[in-house]
């Protein structure tokens, strides 16, 4: 049966599952809509957090990104997992004990200030929107690559599905669909990884295969896989795979910004409000990281497998003798080849990019003349070739998308990858949309502008806000502003330089006051945003290591923003009055189990 048949079948089945769950778990109250009633079991919450966290980028792009970056890919592997340690120990249990519904709730109450709350809401909405636009685009891209739909139509299908379960079910609907989506995406990621691991190393566990012995056509070679890959890389003039290219300080700060940013992202934090008590918040952080680690420890193995497969099959092969997947993905525009020396063979080496970007384009994406074919039958590029001897362009997403074909796996596995990519994108999009709608309905309408609103009206407002957010996110998915891809990575920098210090100090210090926290957040935000805007939009041509502050790239500047926030908060606090007495009381109750004060465990704090 054909690939299309399997893809429609598997994607169709998974979508009906999501809709079924949405109808079963409709939200009836604001508490159910915002935090799923606060009674989600920790294993389920861990899975939901994992799906919420792992976006289309983790599923489709990360392994490919690593396979081109080599050791430096560790910034993503460590950066996107290490934050959970901070969350589990320094934030999640205390925020759960605080109760209430959102991150701005905590900031607003702890710093007894509407301004602090509004600053937090603005940050939360800004971070979530930049992030969600990328997810909707991801949905469209998966549809177009696997089913040949237009990207626009794909985005609309995605909008309808998310609309269904986010608007109807709120957090409750989202949580249980995310559990299902985690299962779909992890299965889809692991199946091809396991097969390729057996093919290349004879070991069915990809994590171990990474350190295994290279096996060629079923015969052990006595060389470790990584040595083999280092050798292949060097032969072709690439840097050794296991050595780094970025400067140590840059790697340090990018990792720091991603870790701390993870711990400060509102759609991650809010997941810990959905469990019963603080101890459950700790165990669900453990489950979440465990479920995430399954994918994140497989990804570096997939990166190595894919790179090895690529380097041992493609360079030097005649185009006409190239494997079927090569030409399939060329049709999809993710591979491009220009025969510079007219020998009909594919030259792939480390001498630089194969061609320039098309004038006016924002990145290196190849653009083709629609029907023109070259002498070997290859597609002809609009991009002008460069002087280097390298003739090949490979989109990094190939490394995951083409995996089943490279390993000659059956067609249903390809359908599975499509469903997995969609699950990853939809689950993240839904989590973000919920943060946006909660921020609007709860933090802005209920807490700031119309405190007398009834519960029913608030729930209606939340649903309306979710609808509005779906439509706006869909719009950005269809007409992506050029900067979306750039900005998503910076959502982390902003979360790191605003929320993380404010929440951390709010829990661990009784002395830090409103003035300190608000100035700290504003300084962190402006510094980080300013640095990014300067290097990415105002003077992109200056964006080189020698112009950077201490050699730290805009991706890593959130780490400095965070340190700055800490310093400013503490200095301003030192010269302004202590917070009112009831704040110390509030902090005490956040630090210890409620029962230590003779109170019910789950009751929200009144003060």
């Amino acid at each position: 049966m054909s690939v299309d048949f399997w893809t429609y079948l598997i994607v169709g089945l998974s979508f009906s599952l999501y809709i079924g769950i949405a109808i079963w778990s409709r939200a009836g109250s604001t508490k159910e809509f915002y935090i799923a009633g606060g009674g989600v079991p920790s294993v389920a919450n861990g899975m939901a957090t994992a799906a919420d966290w792992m976006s289309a980028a983790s599923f489709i792009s990360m392994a490919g990104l690593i396979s081109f970056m080599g050791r430096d890919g560790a910034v993503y592997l460590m950066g996107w997992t290490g934050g959970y340690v901070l969350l589990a120990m320094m934030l999640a249990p205390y925020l759960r004990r605080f109760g209430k519904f959102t991150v701005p709730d905590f900031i607003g109450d702890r710093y007894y200030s509407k301004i602090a709350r509004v600053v937090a809401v603005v940050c939360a909405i800004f971070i979530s929107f930049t992030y969600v636009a990328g997810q909707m685009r991801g949905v469209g891209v998966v549809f177009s690559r696997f089913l040949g739909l237009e990207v626009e139509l794909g985005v609309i299908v995605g909008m309808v599905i998310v609309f269904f379960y986010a608007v109807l079910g709120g957090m409750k609907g989202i949580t249980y669909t995310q559990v299902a989506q985690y299962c779909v995406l992890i299965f889809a990621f692991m199946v091809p990884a396991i097969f390729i691991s057996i093919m290349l190393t004879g070991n069915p566990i990809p994590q171990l295969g990474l350190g295994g012995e290279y096996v060629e056509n079923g015969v052990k070679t006595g060389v470790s896989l990584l040595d083999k890959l280092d050798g292949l890389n060097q032969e072709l003039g690439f840097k050794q795979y296991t050595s780094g290219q970025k400067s140590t300080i840059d790697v340090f700060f990018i990792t720091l910004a991603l870790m701390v940013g993870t711990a400060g992202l509102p759609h991650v934090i809010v997941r810990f409000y959905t469990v019963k008590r603080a101890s459950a918040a700790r165990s669900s952080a453990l489950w979440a990281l465990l479920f995430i680690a399954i994918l994140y420890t497989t990804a570096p193995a997939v990166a190595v497998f894919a790179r090895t497969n690529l380097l041992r099959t493609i360079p030097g092969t005649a185009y006409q003798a190239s494997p079927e997947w090569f030409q399939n993905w060329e049709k999809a525009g993710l591979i491009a080849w220009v025969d510079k020396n007219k020998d009909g063979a594919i030259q792939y080496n480390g001498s630089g990019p194969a061609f320039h970007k098309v004038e006016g384009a924002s990145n290196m994406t190849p653009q083709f003349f629609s029907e023109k074919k070259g002498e070997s039958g290859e597609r002809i590029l609009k991009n002008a070739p460069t002087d280097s001897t390298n003739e090949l362009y490979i989109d990094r997403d190939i490394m995951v998308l083409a995996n089943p074909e490279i390993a000659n796996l059956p067609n249903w596995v390809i359908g599975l990858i499509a469903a997995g990519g969609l699950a990853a994108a939809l689950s993240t999009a839904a989590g973000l949309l919920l943060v946006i709608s909660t921020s609007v309905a709860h933090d802005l309408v209920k807490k700031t502008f119309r405190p007398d609103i009834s519960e029913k009206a608030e729930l209606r407002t939340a649903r309306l806000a979710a609808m509005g957010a779906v439509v706006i996110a869909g719009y950005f998915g269809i007409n992506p502003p050029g900067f979306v891809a750039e900005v998503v990575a910076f959502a982390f920098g902003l979360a790191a330089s605003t929320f993380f210090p404010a929440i951390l100090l709010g829990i661990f210090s009784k002395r830090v006051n409103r003035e300190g926290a608000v100035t700290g957040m504003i300084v962190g935000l402006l510094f980080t945003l300013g640095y990014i805007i300067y290097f990415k939009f105002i003077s992109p041509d200056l964006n080189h290591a020698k112009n950077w502050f201490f050699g730290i790239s805009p991706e890593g500047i959130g780490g400095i923003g965070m340190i700055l926030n800490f310093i400013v908060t503490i200095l301003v606090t030192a010269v302004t009055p202590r917070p009112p007495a009831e704040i110390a009381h509030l902090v005490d109750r956040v630090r210890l189990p409620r029962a230590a004060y003779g109170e019910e465990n789950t009751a929200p704090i009144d003060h």
Partner: protein
Amino acid sequence: MSKKTASPEARSRYWKLNLCWLIGLSMIWFLVSFGCGILWVDELDQYTLPGSGIKLGFWFAQQGSIYVFVTLIAIYMIVMNQLDKQLLSDLRAPEDFEKLDSTEQKGDRK
């Protein structure tokens, strides 16, 4: 029925022990990820992970640190569950230490 609470000493002991564990575990977190995975990665690369063909620094950067993260959270979870149990097993009626409680509150607010 009068509500039972933990004694002020028990509460401050709980918080201090929590901070100790937290600081200790975050130091390991930092040493493994930023230390072994980034700062000392080249030195560690001279060795390989026993029983495999991976350079040690590379392994820490791409896999080992993640395993350590999971372990750290697991340890913290177990320790805190114990501390919770200890704290809550010794609840008493507030009359028993009302005096102490009020002095602590004053101390906090000055």
